[in-house]
C-alpha cells in the first residue's frame, strides 16, 4: 500500500487514503475498479496514472453509444484476407488456405483483446462505460469475470496476465447490478479545499500561496451552488490558476473574477446563474476570508 502511495506522489497525483486502499484491494483481489463521480474530478486521470505508476501499457477503450464487439474486441482483416485469396488464385496448391486465413495474422486486435493478449499486465481503461448500450455492458461483464474470449475460428483466448481494469462512469445512467457486483467501487468527489490547494501547488508550482488558497476557496464556493449545471473541474481550476499566473496577479479581486470567469464556467446559463446567485464581489470576499 505504501508503494502505491509513493507511486501516486511521484507522478504528482494528489489523492487520499480511500483511493489508495481501493486501488490496492483491486490489485490484490484482481477485480476491476468502477469509478463514479462528477465530470472533471480525475476519474480518467486515475486510470492513466496507474499505467505510469506500474510502468505498464495503458490500453484505452473510449465508450460511446452504439459501441459493439467488433470495435471493442476484434475484427478480421477482411482486406488482407481478400488479397491473400487473390494471390492464392495463381498458386497451384490451396491446402490449408482457410486455416491460414483465420489465423492470428489476420486478426485485428481491438482494445479488449489487446489487453487480454498483452505480454505484461496492462492497465485497461474503459472510459465512460455508462455511454454504452446495455447489450454491450452485459458482454463486458462476462469478459471481466473470466478474462477470456471465444473467437469461433481460433478457440478460446485466455488472458496470460489479468489486466488492471479501470471503468469510469459519469453516472448518466444506472449501470447494471451484474457489472457492479464484479467491480470494486470508488466514488470520487470534488476535492476538499485543502486537497485542491495541494493539487494547485503540485501542478502550478510558481503560483503564490495566498492566490492558491483564494482560488481553491472560490472554486469550492462555485461548486456548492446547486443551480450551476457544469461545475468547474479540477482541470479548469488549474487553467484558472495558470491564467492568473500569466496575468501576473498575486491576489483575487472582483474585477479579475469578472474578467476570467469564463475559464471556470463555460455556458451562458451558468455565468448568468453565477452573477445572480453568487456574484464576483461575494466570491472575491469569500476567497479572501
Amino acid at each position, binding site marked *: 500500500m505504501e508503494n502505491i502511495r509513493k507511486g501516486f506522489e511521484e507522478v504528482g497525483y494528489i489523492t487520499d*487514503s*480511500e483511493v489508495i*486502499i*481501493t486501488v*490496492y*484491494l483491486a490489485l*490484490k*483481489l484482481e*477485480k476491476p475498479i*468502477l469509478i*463514479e463521480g462528477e465530470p472533471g474530478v480525475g476519474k480518467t486521470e486515475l486510470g492513466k496514472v496507474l499505467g505510469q505508476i506500474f510502468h505498464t501499457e495503458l490500453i484505452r477503450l473510449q465508450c460511446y*453509444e*452504439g459501441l459493439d464487439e467488433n470495435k471493442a474486441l476484434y475484427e478480421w482483416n*477482411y*482486406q488482407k484476407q*481478400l488479397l491473400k485469396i*487473390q494471390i492464392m488464385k495463381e498458386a497451384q496448391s490451396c491446402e490449408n488456405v482457410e486455416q491460414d486465413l483465420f489465423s492470428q495474422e489476420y486478426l485485428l486486435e481491438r482494445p479488449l483483446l489487446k489487453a487480454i493478449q498483452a505480454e505484461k499486465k496492462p492497465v485497461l481503461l474503459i472510459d465512460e462505460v455508462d455511454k454504452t*448500450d*446495455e*447489450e454491450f455492458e452485459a458482454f463486458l461483464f462476462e469478459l471481466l469475470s473470466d478474462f477470456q474470449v471465444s473467437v469461433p475460428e481460433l478457440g478460446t483466448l485466455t488472458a496470460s496476465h489479468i489486466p488492471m481494469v479501470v471503468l469510469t462512469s459519469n*453516472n*448518466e*445512467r*444506472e449501470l447494471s*447490478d451484474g457489472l*457492479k*457486483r464484479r*467491480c*470494486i*467501487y*470508488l*466514488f470520487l468527489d470534488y476535492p476538499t479545499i485543502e486537497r485542491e490547494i495541494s493539487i494547485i501547488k503540485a501542478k502550478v508550482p510558481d503560483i503564490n500561496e495566498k492566490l492558491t488558497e483564494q482560488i481553491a476557496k472560490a472554486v469550492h464556493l462555485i461548486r456548492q451552488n*446547486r*443551480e450551476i449545471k457544469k461545475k468547474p473541474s479540477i482541470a479548469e481550476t488549474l487553467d484558472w490558476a495558470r491564467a492568473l499566473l500569466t496575468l501576473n496577479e498575486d491576489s483575487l479581486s472582483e474585477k479579475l473574477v469578472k474578467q476570467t470567469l469564463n475559464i471556470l464556467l463555460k*455556458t*451562458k*446559463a451558468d455565468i*448568468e*446563474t453565477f452573477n445572480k446567485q453568487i456574484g464576483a464581489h461575494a466570491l472575491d470576499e469569500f476567497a479572501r476570508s
Partner: protein
Amino acid sequence: MEKTIEANIVRFTHLLRLAGIRVGSGEVIDALNALTYVDFSDREQVKTALRSVLVKRKGEREVFDRTFDLYFAPLEERERHQMEHQMRQDQKKQQIEEAQQDLKFEEENLELTEEDKYLYSQMDQEDKERIKDYLQKAEAGKAREWEPNVKPLIETIVKGALRRWLHSHPDQVDLQERVSTGDQELDYILEDLGQKAPSGEDSLMYEDMQHIKDKDLPKANMLIRRLAKHLVTRISRRYKRSKRHQLLDLRRTIRDNIRYGGTMFKLKYRSKRIQKPKLILLCDVSGSMSRYASMVLQFIYGIHSVLGNIESFIFSDDLERISQHFQPGSDFNQLMVDIMNKSRVWGGGTRLHQSLKTLRKNHPAVLTSDAYLIVLSDTKTESIGETLHELRTIKKCVKDILWLNTLPEQEWQNSASTRAFQPLVKMYPSNTLNDIEKLTRSKIFA
C-alpha cells in the same frame, strides 16, 4: 453467538441489507478476502475496504458509514446503546399500557391497534382530555338503549380522531415499522439508523413526495430533475438491435470497388437509424396534486433538457400545452413563474376525460403510432367511465400509455379509479423518488 470475523461480517452484511443496501453473497466473500489484505488495527482501513466492496452506489455510502460506526462501535458504547434501546422499548410498552387504561368504554377496552394506542400516548394532555371527555359523554348518553352494539362505532370515531391528530402533527410521532431481526443488538442499530436518518438525498429518496418538507424541496427538485434525465437517457439509448443492424449497401459497394476490378475489397454498410421514441407527457396539476406541482415541472424540465422529441401538457379541469416554455437554456425559476402565471388550469379540479378529449381533438398530430403517452397523476378524477372511454380511444392511436401513479401502491386497491385504469395502461408507482429511480432501471419502454 459466534464471534469469528466471518460471523461478524455476515451479520454486518445482513444489517446492511435491512438498511436498504443491496449486498450479494459474492460481495460478502469479497469483503472477507479484502480484510485479509488490510491492517486490522486501522479502523479507517477496514471501513474503506468494506465500503469499496460492499457499497456500489453513491447514495448508499452514508448509510454504510452510519451502520459501520454503530455496528463496530467500542464495546462500552454498544452496551450503552443497547441499554438505552431497552429502556426506550420499556417506556413505549408502559405508555401503551397507560393509553389502554384511558381508552375504555363502559369498563371494556376499546379494540385498537398497538399503533393507535401509541399515537394516543404521544398526544398532548389537552387532546387526550378531549378524547376521554368524548368517551365519558358517550357512556353518559346511554347510547346502548337505542343501539346495543355502539362500541364499534365509538372505536371508529376514536380511530378517526387519532388519525386526524397524526395528520396535523406528522413530525411529532415516528410510526415507522421496523423489522425485528430477533437479535437485540441488530434491532437497536436498526432503530438508531431510522432515528438518525439524515435529511440528505438518502432519506428524501424514500419519502412520500407529498410529505417532503419545504426546506428539503430544493434538494428534492434537484433529485427529480436528475432522475428525469436518467429516465430519458435510458430511453434515448434504446433501439432494437438485430442481425440486420448493419446492412450491406450493395450499390455503394459495387461503385466503390470498380477501381479494384470488381473485387469486393471495401465493403459499404447501411446502418439502421436509431429511433428515439416520441413522448407525450401529461401531468396532473390539479388541487390534489398541488404539493407535487413544482416537482412535476422539474420532471418535465429534466426530460426536456435531454430529449427534444417531446410534447408536454398539464391538466386539471382541462388541458394546456406547455412545450413552448421549455426552450434550451431557459431558467427554471423563470419558467415556473411563467407557466403558473399564464396557466388557467393550475390547482383546479380533475377532469381527465375532458383533458384527454381536448388532447384528441386539438392536438391529433401528436398522437402517432410511435409515441408513448406518459400520464403523471394520482388517478383521482371525475367521471371514471368517460375517462376510460377516452383512454381506450387514445390507446388505439399511440404505441402505449404509461401511467406514473403518485398514489402509494398500498392504496391502489382502495382507489376505484386506479383499479379501473390499471388493466388499460401500464401503471408504475411513483410515490417516492426511489420509485422513480427504480423506473430508470426498469425497461418501461418495451
